[in-house]
C-alpha cells in the first residue's frame, strides 16, 4: 500500500495516557523537534491535581496538546486532529473533544479487562463499533516496545517505560519530522546511562519504522515551515518567560533580583526557574507563607532590590493587606498572579481569569495599582519586563496577571538581544532631592515619583510606613486636606502612566461591526476566530488589552468606532464590568467558566450569532 504524503497547514495532536506513561515528556520533545523544523506552534499540558493517581483511572489521565503549522499559530488548538491514547481511560476522557473523522492512535495492549473496567467501558470500544466515526489506528505499542528491546537485559519495568519513545517515533513518521534532534537529546539526557541511550534510541526508531512499514498506516502529513518574523527562536513556557523577564529587568536596571514567594500551583515554576539563577544575583526566598513572601519583598524593595512576589489566586488574597503597604510606602514591587480556577481552592490545575477585579480593587482604602496581563507564554517575558520597568520608574507596586493556561503552555519566542531591550529607569535619591541639606522621602519628580533612598547611604536616613504620609516630608499625618491630597496624588500618579505606554492597537479594520475586546490569555483564541471571520468577509476586529490599569488613552475612542463590542472572558464578565463603567458603553459578553481556555470556534460562533449569520 502506498503511503501518500498530504500537505496540511496546521495540525493539533494530543498525547494522553496515565501519569506514568510519559506523555508530558513526549509532548515536550515533539514540540522541540517541531519548532526546529520551523513550524509555529503552541502547546498545552493538562494533568490531574493528584500527583500520581492509580494507574488506569479516569482522573489519573495526563494529557499534552500541541498545535503546529505553517502559518501563525495562536492557540494549542481547539480540537485534536490526532489523539494518542495510551489506555482506555485516556480514550474515555478525551473522546468528547474529538470531531468525527479525527485520527485515534491507541495502545491496544492496554485494552484489557481491568483497564476497560477502570475506565468505565462496558465493552471494548476497539471492538464494539462505538468508534466507527473515527479513524482508529490500533497499535500494540507495549508489545512492540518490548520486542524492540529484547535481549538487552532490561527489566520489564525499564522496557515498558520506553514506550513513549515508540509513540514519538511513530508520530515523527506520521508528521514527517527528523529523528536526529531527539537522538541528540537522548544522548545528552542519559549521558551517564549508556544502556538507556541505546534503549530509547532503539525504541524511537522502532516506532518510526513501524509507521513506515505497517500496513495500517495510510496517512502521512507534511507541514511546511511557517513564515515567522526573522530571528533566533526558542520554545518557552509562560512561567519560564516570566522568570527570564524579571532577570532581564534586574540586569538592565543593575539591581539584585529578590523573589519572596510561597509555592503554589500553577505559579511554582517561576520560583524553580529563578532559584537556579544564583549567579545572576537572584535571591529567592521561599517564604513561610504568601504574606511573608510579599513582606520580605517589600523589605527587599526598601533595601534597593528589584523585588517580586509570585503566586496564584488564594495567595494573591493573602497578599492584599501588604499590597496596600507597598502603595502607601511607594516602593517598587511586582506581584505576579498566575490565575487558576476559583473561588477558594477551586480547581488548582485549571485555568481561569477570575482575579481581574480583585487585582483592580481588592485592597482596603483607595490603593491604585497598575495591572498588566500577559497574552501568551512568550508574552510573559514582556509582561514581567514592562511591569518591572513601571514599578521602578514610578515607585509603585504593579500586578502582572498570567493564567494557568499560558503559564504551563509553551510557544516559540523570538529571542531579543539583551541590548535591544528598553532601558529601565530608577529614581534613586540624590543630593538634588534635598532641601536645605535635609532629605525628605516624599519629595517628587515631575512624574510625581518619590526618590528611592536605600539604607546604607549617609545623609538620606528616613522613615516610611503604612500610616498616611505628609506630602514632601513623609511625616505621619492625619491632616484632612493632606490626606485628600495624597489619595488623589497617588491615584493621579498611576493614571499618568497612561502617557508612558503604547496606544492600543486594533487588528483588522479600525472600525466595523464588531470589536472583540479581550485581555490576557484569550488572545490566541480570539485572534484565530477574528482571522477566520475576516476571511469570511465580516467586519470584525480584535483588540487585546495588555494594560488593564491604566488603560491605553485611545481605548474609549476605539470603542466608539465599532457598532458592537464583544468581550469574551474566562469569568462572569469582569473586564466587561470595568469597560461599562469606564466608558458607559454597552458591551456584549461571552463567558466561559470551565477551567478551560476558549476554543476559537466558540468565539467565532458567538460573533456569527451576533451578526445574525446562521
Amino acid at each position: 500500500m502506498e503511503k501518500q504524503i498530504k500537505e496540511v497547514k496546521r495540525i493539533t495532536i494530543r498525547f494522553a495516557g496515565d501519569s506514568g506513561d510519559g506523555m508530558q515528556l513526549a509532548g515536550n520533545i515533539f514540540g522541540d523537534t517541531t519548532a526546529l523544523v520551523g513550524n509555529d506552534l503552541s502547546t498545552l499540558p493538562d494533568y490531574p491535581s493528584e500527583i500520581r493517581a492509580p494507574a488506569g483511572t479516569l482522573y489519573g489521565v495526563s494529557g499534552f496538546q500541541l498545535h503546529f503549522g505553517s502559518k501563525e499559530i495562536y492557540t494549542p488548538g481547539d480540537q485534536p486532529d490526532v489523539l494518542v491514547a495510551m489506555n482506555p481511560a485516556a480514550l474515555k476522557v478525551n473522546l468528547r473533544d474529538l470531531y468525527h473523522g479525527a485520527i485515534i492512535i491507541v495502545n491496544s495492549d492496554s485494552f484489557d479487562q481491568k483497564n476497560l473496567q477502570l475506565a468505565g467501558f462496558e465493552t471494548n470500544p476497539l471492538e464494539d463499533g462505538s468508534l466507527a466515526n473515527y479513524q482508529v489506528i490500533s497499535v500494540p505499542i507495549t508489545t512492540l516496545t518490548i520486542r524492540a528491546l529484547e535481549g538487552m537485559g532490561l527489566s520489564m519495568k525499564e522496557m515498558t517505560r520506553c514506550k513513549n519513545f515508540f509513540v514519538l517515533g511513530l508520530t515523527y513518521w506520521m508528521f514527517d519530522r527528523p529523528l536526529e534532534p531527539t537522538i541528540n537529546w537522548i544522548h545528552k539526557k542519559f549521558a551517564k546511562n549508556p544502556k538507556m541511550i541505546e534503549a530509547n534510541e532503539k525504541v524511537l526508531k522502532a516506532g518510526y519504522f513501524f509507521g513506515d512499514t505497517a500496513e495500517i498506516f495510510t496517512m502521512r502529513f507534511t507541514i511546511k515551515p511557517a513564515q515567522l518574523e526573522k530571528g533566533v527562536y526558542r520554545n518557552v513556557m509562560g512561567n519560564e518567560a516570566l522568570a527570564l523577564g524579571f532577570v532581564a529587568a534586574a540586569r538592565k536596571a543593575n539591581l539584585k533580583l529578590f523573589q519572596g514567594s510561597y509555592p503554589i500551583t500553577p505559579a511554582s515554576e517561576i520560583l524553580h526557574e529563578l532559584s537556579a539563577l544564583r549567579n545572576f544575583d537572584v535571591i529567592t526566598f521561599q517564604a513561610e507563607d504568601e504574606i511573608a513572601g510579599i513582606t520580605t519583598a517589600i523589605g527587599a524593595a526598601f533595601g534597593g532590590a528589584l523585588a517580586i512576589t509570585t503566586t496564584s489566586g488564594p495567595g494573591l488574597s493573602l497578599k492584599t493587606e501588604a499590597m496596600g503597604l507597598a502603595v502607601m510606602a511607594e516602593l517598587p514591587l511586582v506581584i505576579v498572579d498566575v490565575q487558576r480556577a476559583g473561588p477558594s481552592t477551586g480547581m488548582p490545575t485549571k485555568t481561569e481569569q477570575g482575579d481581574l477585579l480583585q487585582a483592580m480593587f481588592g485592597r482596603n482604602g483607595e490603593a491604585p495599582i497598575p495591572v498588566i496581563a500577559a497574552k501568551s507564554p512568550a508574552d510573559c517575558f514582556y509582561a514581567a519586563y514592562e511591569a518591572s520597568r513601571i514599578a521602578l520608574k514610578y515607585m509603585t507596586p504593579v500586578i502582572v496577571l498570567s493564567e494557568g493556561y499560558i503559564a504551563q503552555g509553551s510557544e516559540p519566542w523570538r529571542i531579543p538581544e539583551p541590548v535591544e531591550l528598553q532601558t529601565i529607569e530608577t529614581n534613586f535619591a540624590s543630593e538634588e532631592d534635598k532641601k536645605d541639606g535635609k532629605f525628605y522621602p516624599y519629595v517628587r519628580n515631575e512624574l510625581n515619583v518619590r526618590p528611592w533612598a536605600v539604607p546604607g547611604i549617609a545623609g538620606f536616613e528616613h522613615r516610611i510606613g503604612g500610616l498616611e504620609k505628609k506630602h514632601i516630608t513623609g511625616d505621619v499625618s492625619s491632616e484632612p486636606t493632606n490626606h485628600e491630597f495624597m489619595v488623589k496624588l497617588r491615584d493621579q500618579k498611576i493614571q499618568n502612566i497612561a502617557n508612558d505606554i503604547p496606544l492600543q492597537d486594533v487588528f483588522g479594520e479600525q472600525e466595523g461591526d464588531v470589536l472583540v475586546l479581550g485581555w490576557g490569555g484569550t488572545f490566541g483564541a480570539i485572534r484565530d476566530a477574528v482571522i477566520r471571520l475576516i476571511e469570511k468577509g465580516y467586519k470584525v476586529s480584535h483588540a487585546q488589552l495588555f494594560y488593564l490599569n491604566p488603560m491605553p488613552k485611545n481605548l474609549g475612542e476605539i470603542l466608539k468606532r465599532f457598532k458592537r463590542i464583544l468581550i469574551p472572558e474566562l469569568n462572569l464578565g469582569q473586564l466587561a464590568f470595568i469597560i461599562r463603567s469606564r466608558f458607559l458603553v454597552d458591551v456584549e459578553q461571552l463567558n466561559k467558566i470551565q477551567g478551560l481556555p476558549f476554543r476559537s470556534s466558540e468565539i467565532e460562533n458567538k460573533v456569527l450569532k451576533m451578526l445574525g449569520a446562521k
Partner: protein
Amino acid sequence: MSTVELEIKYTPKDFQSDQDVRWCPGCGDYSILAQVQRTLPLLKIKKEKFVFVSGIGCSSRFPYYVDTYGFHGIHGRATAIATGVKLTNPDLSVWVATGDGDLLSIGGNHFIHTCRKNVDIKILLFNNRIYGLTKGQYSPTSELHKVTKSSPYGTTEYPFNPVALAIGTEATLVARSMDRDPKHLQEMILRAGQHKGTAFLEIYQNCNIFNDGAFFHLTEKEYKADNVVYLRHNEPLVFGKEEDKGIRLDGMNPLVVSLKDGKWSKDDLLVHDEFNRDPAYAAMLSRLEEKPGFPVPIGVFRQIQKPTLEDMLYEQINEVKRKKGEGDLRKLFFDTTTWEIK
C-alpha cells in the same frame, strides 16, 4: 558585620530623630528608646547602616524616633520585612522593634521562622502583656484570668513564655531585660547588637495606662531581689535581698536552696553557661519561673554561633558564580535549543 569602623564616635544625640515622641507620659517605652540611643554608639557602626523595622502598636512607633533608616510596617510583619532588608543588604545592622501582640500574636509565624533560619536581625520585644495601641485588650503574654477590655470575666488562655518559645525555635541569642533596669538593658542591647544571627531580647515594659505595675514585683526595689535572678556567665545562680538564696540542680531538677543555714554554699549552685550549645539547658532555665518559689531569670539564656541564612545564601551565590561564572543574560537567553528563521 563587615562594616565596623573604629573611627566612628557617635553620641546618643546622633540617634535622636526630629520627631516628637508620642508615647504616654511615663510609658516604659521611653526608657527602651533611651537605652537604645545610648547603646548604638558603642557598636561602632555607621549610623546610616542601621535599619529599624517595626509592625504596629505603641512600641512599633519606635523607628520614628531613631535617626537612622526606618520602616514602620504593618501589624505582625516586622520580622519578615526585616528579613527582606537583610537578605538584600547583608552589611546592614537590622533591628526589629515590636510588641507582644505584634510579634507573638499576629506575627508569631514570621517570628518562629526567622529564628529557625537564624537571619541576622535583632528583635527587641517590648512585652507589656497588653495591647496598648488598641486600648487594652489582653495579649498572648497576659496572665491567665486577667481582666481586660476583651476579657471582662478574665481570660481563659494560658500565656506564652516568649523565651521558651524562642528557644524552641533555636534562636541563637535569647535574652531578657527590663525597662526599669537601664544598665542591664543597655548591656543586653549591646549583646544583641554584637550578635551575628537572630537575637531575641524580651524586655519587660510597663504600660502605665492599661497594665500599670505588671512587672513591679520584678522591677521595684522592695521585691526585685527576691523575685529576680540575674544570669551571668560562669557565675552561680544567686538571688535574694541578702544574696541568701540560690538555685541548685538535683539531676535535671532545679531546686531553690537557702545559703543561710549552712547546708549549701555558692559552690553547690548551678553555674550559668551562656554558651551551652544544648538548647535543653536554656529550655530548663526558661521554665524556672513557672515553678512556685522560683525567681524570674534576667540576662542571656543562651548564645551560640552558627552560620546565618544570609551567610549561607551569599556563600551559595558565590559558589555558583565560581562554578558557572557571573550570570550572562545573553547566554541565559540563547544557550538552549534554538532555531533561526531567516
